[in-house]
């Protein structure tokens, strides 16, 4: 009987070897197939079990904190002043994933970023739990709060972006209506689901959308600074004359291109570029765009940052474009920022900042520093001069024209002793522009002679002024309040 028993022994060893081989296949060779399967929640849960990094603003105030809990997910994400910062921080939700910086800097915050490698290894050896890195932002809490209060106190839907012109640091980024990310970060699945349902309801007006980077609007008259920049680059100057007519026909059509209220731009047949910009005359800028042609206009726009699909701050930013320009009629309309022009509030702030910075365009950024779990700096963001969009002489000329424009602009909030350079816009949109309340724009920088802040403000659908809304009446007061808050705090 011993021979068959020995064979049974062989068979038993074969069985164990088969099991070992198959375990190797499942756990080692083919492990990624199962590990990365979307049904596998273990990886996500592991991230929760790790102490996630903090997000702080410029003065060190923590806006995204973690709190240790006794439940299964161990660490709870806590957002301080949640709604004011939600468009920037985004949210971290077990069920609904991540958004905003929580998504863009996820690897760093959860500790898996390569820059944290050495610390991970040491955590492994010392047996401590690995922790995520911290992210310090460029946002200035005071003006972020002022900007948020300005928009929400009147119930406006819109966005404010403020940039430091000489570095590209984003000083404020607000989008309203906002939301409380704490609800989505909740460890209570029902609370999460209820919040998610409410935020995505039809009448909720897209609170999860970060309008500053993700929403595209017609630029309206704010685009006139780009057209003027193109004309200056083309050899024109502030005194170059353009038509002063109250209404002109678009080339090869019977369609009117009127000024605001059809008012002529000046007493004579023509007006200077300076006056046309100050009074925001559509006819003059239509003609100016027509003279420049689509190519020059496009090139200038690109120098200001249009058509840059790769821009990340570090969240990806929607691409601003002039859109298709089919014919001269379209070119005229593009010249006043209508037709197919689409721009994000961030890009509009970049335009203002570029002019303020003597024509040098700086890449906008939100993350100033990356700190290790021990709060030692791992990586500092260096300001990046992407492109010279204008010569400094032309930038000065344009600035002077924008100072005139500010003088011509209505609305409250002006402060003695602070010179602002600005441009307003009242952008028509929708299928029936005359029945839809226009978007109100305001781009500006101050102090005009030595700019420290550039901003873009948009208030959707006329804010509280309905069809009669203009950039000057609705958006400009908000912009000035933000600028004043910043200058006061310096």
């Amino acid at each position, binding site marked *: 009987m011993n021979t068959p*028993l020995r064979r*049974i022994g062989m068979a038993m060893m074969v069985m164990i070897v088969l099991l*070992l081989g198959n375990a190797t296949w499942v756990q080692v060779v083919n492990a990624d197939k199962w590990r990365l399967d979307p049904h596998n929640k*273990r990886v996500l849960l592991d991230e929760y079990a790790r102490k996630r990094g903090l997000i702080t603003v410029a003065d060190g105030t923590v806006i995204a904190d973690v709190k240790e809990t006794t439940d299964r997910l161990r660490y709870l994400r806590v957002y301080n002043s949640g709604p004011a910062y939600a468009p920037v921080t985004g949210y971290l939700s077990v069920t609904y994933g991540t958004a905003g910086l929580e998504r863009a800097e996820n690897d760093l915050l959860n500790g898996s970023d390569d820059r944290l490698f050495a610390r991970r290894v040491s955590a492994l050896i010392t047996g401590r739990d690995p922790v995520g890195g911290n992210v310090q932002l460029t946002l200035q809490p005071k003006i972020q709060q002022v900007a948020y209060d300005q928009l929400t106190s009147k119930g406006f839907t819109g966005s404010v972006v403020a940039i430091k012109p000489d570095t590209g640091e984003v000083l404020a980024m607000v989008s309203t209506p906002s939301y409380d990310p704490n609800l989505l970060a909740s460890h209570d699945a029902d609370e999460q689901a209820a919040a998610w349902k409410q935020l995505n309801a039809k009448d909720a007006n897209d609170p999860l959308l970060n309008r500053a980077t993700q929403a595209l609007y017609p630029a309206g008259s704010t685009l006139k600074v780009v057209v003027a920049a193109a004309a200056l680059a083309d050899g024109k100057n502030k005194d170059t004359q353009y038509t002063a007519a109250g209404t002109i026909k678009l080339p090869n059509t019977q369609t009117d291109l009127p000024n605001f209220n059809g008012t002529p731009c000046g007493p004579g047949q023509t007006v200077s570029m300076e006056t046309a910009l100050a009074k925001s005359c559509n006819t003059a800028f239509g003609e100016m765009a027509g003279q420049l042609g689509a190519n020059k206009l496009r090139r200038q726009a690109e120098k200001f940052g249009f058509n840059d699909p790769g821009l990340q701050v570090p969240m990806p930013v929607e691409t601003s474009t002039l859109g298709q320009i089919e014919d001269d009629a379209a070119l005229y309309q593009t010249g006043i920022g209508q037709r197919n022009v689409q721009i994000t509030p961030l890009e509009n702030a970049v335009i203002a900042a570029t002019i303020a910075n003597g024509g040098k365009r700086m890449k906008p950024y939100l993350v100033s520093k990356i700190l290790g779990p021990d709060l030692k700096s791992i990586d500092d963001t260096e300001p990046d001069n992407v492109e010279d969009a204008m010569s400094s002489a032309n930038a000065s000329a344009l600035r002077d024209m924008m100072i005139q424009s500010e003088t011509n602009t209505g609305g409250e909030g002006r402060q003695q002793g602070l010179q602002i350079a600005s441009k307003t816009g009242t952008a028509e949109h929708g299928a029936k522009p005359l029945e839809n309340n226009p978007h109100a724009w305001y781009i500006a920088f101050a102090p005009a002679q030595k700019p420290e802040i550039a901003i873009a403000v948009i208030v959707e659908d006329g804010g509280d002024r309905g069809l009669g809304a203009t950039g000057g009446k609705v958006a400009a007061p908000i912009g000035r309040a933000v600028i004043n808050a910043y200058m006061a705090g310096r």
Partner: protein
Amino acid sequence: MGSPAPAGEGSPVASVATNTSPGLRPPTRRGTELVMLSFAAGLVTLALILVELNQERSLSLRIVYLGLAYLGLFACAHLAVRRWAPYADPAILPCVALLNGLGLVMIHRIDLALEGVKYLDGSTWSPVAFKQVIMTAIGLLLFAATLKFLSDHRTLARFGYTFGLAGLVALLLPGVLPGFIAPTINGAKIWLRVGQFSIQPGEFAKILLMVFFAAFLVSKRDLFTTAGRRFLGMDLPRARDLGPLFAAWGVTVAVMVLQKDLGSSLLFFGIVLVLLYVATERAAWVVLGVGLFSGGAIIAWRLFDHVQDRVANWQDPIARYDVEFGGGYQISQSLFGLATGGIGGAGLGAGRPEMIPEANSDFITAVIGEELGFIGLAAVLLIYMVFALRGLRSAISVRDSFGKLLGGGLAFAVCFQVFIVVGGVTKLIPMTGITAPFLSYGGSSLLANYILVALLLRISAAARAPQRAPKPKPQQPAIADQHTVMVERPK
């Protein structure tokens, strides 16, 4: 390594060992066993400490007490072996101790993870680790009792038919009894419930039937080895000798149909085949048996939904992930856990094995694979292999046919059961739902397996013990002392 003469055996060398020089007793190796048991206890305590640290984030003296209690339990088992089976194999009990201890730690670990979890019907998870500790104690009592009262395994052969009948009844009882006493749990009808207690008679039937088959085959061995016709190089058995095989096949199919217990029927049939093969030394039995089983399995697959479900889940678990009953969720979770654990594992108490349904019973090896990684799972498999090979070693060296057959069958049963369950959770074969010996939560399985270990130790003790001094042999003729003389062949 070996320790000197065991305590309790007073008389000095009274017998002559067969394999050692006259006048010396073979080492009992009980000291080796004790050292290995202590090592196992140390490992288990370490595992418990890690689980507590990772799950509770605190340590208390409780752990030391638990570790000591565990060491105490197995020290008692060790003393029982010393007393009643001093020559038993020294590696088997430590293997069992390590597996059982690791199982207890993992069951406790799942308890911690599921603490306070509310189920849809409003009930909450009730911890089971303590119950399993009690079961371990009872199991070790049974183990010691078996060693004490069964001083010679050959006694069992005399009750072969009684055991066979009892085993058959136990195996089929849950299948035929009405639902209030034999409820269907998770699709299988293999439990008997009396008040608070529920037992799985099939676990005990496995051993009873093995005893029966071993006894039966030994007594009828000559019949089976009588050659039938030769066919394709194999000696086919005679048709009339096929009876037992067909009987076993019938019982297997009955278990599959009545109780929907695929794992047990596969295990049972495998054991019968191996016993037949070892008894007759005929490969033809194996070929015939595998053919019969394959045929039965294919028919079952055609006829029964639950068999089709298992096969479909095996082919593509993700595709059936959301199927509500009998879907691929469980096996998917097992694979997720194993893959997430990877080579080194998530760490004891640091994974998410509680996401696998039945994590503490049928899928406990997946829990080990997730938290201890491939390394840990491989170690557990190798412990099983050591256990089974030591058992087989005993079967090979024991002198009587019944012992050889029973020992071989018991060793194979454990190994084959491991193959079925680990193969199932790692998607090597379709999942058939069976416990992992010594690891899984479940009293019946544990008690039955402790009896199995006692039987193996009894057989191994018989194999290694010095033989009683034979009757004095008649004086050898003087010629035997003479040197052989080479005589040249005449040319």
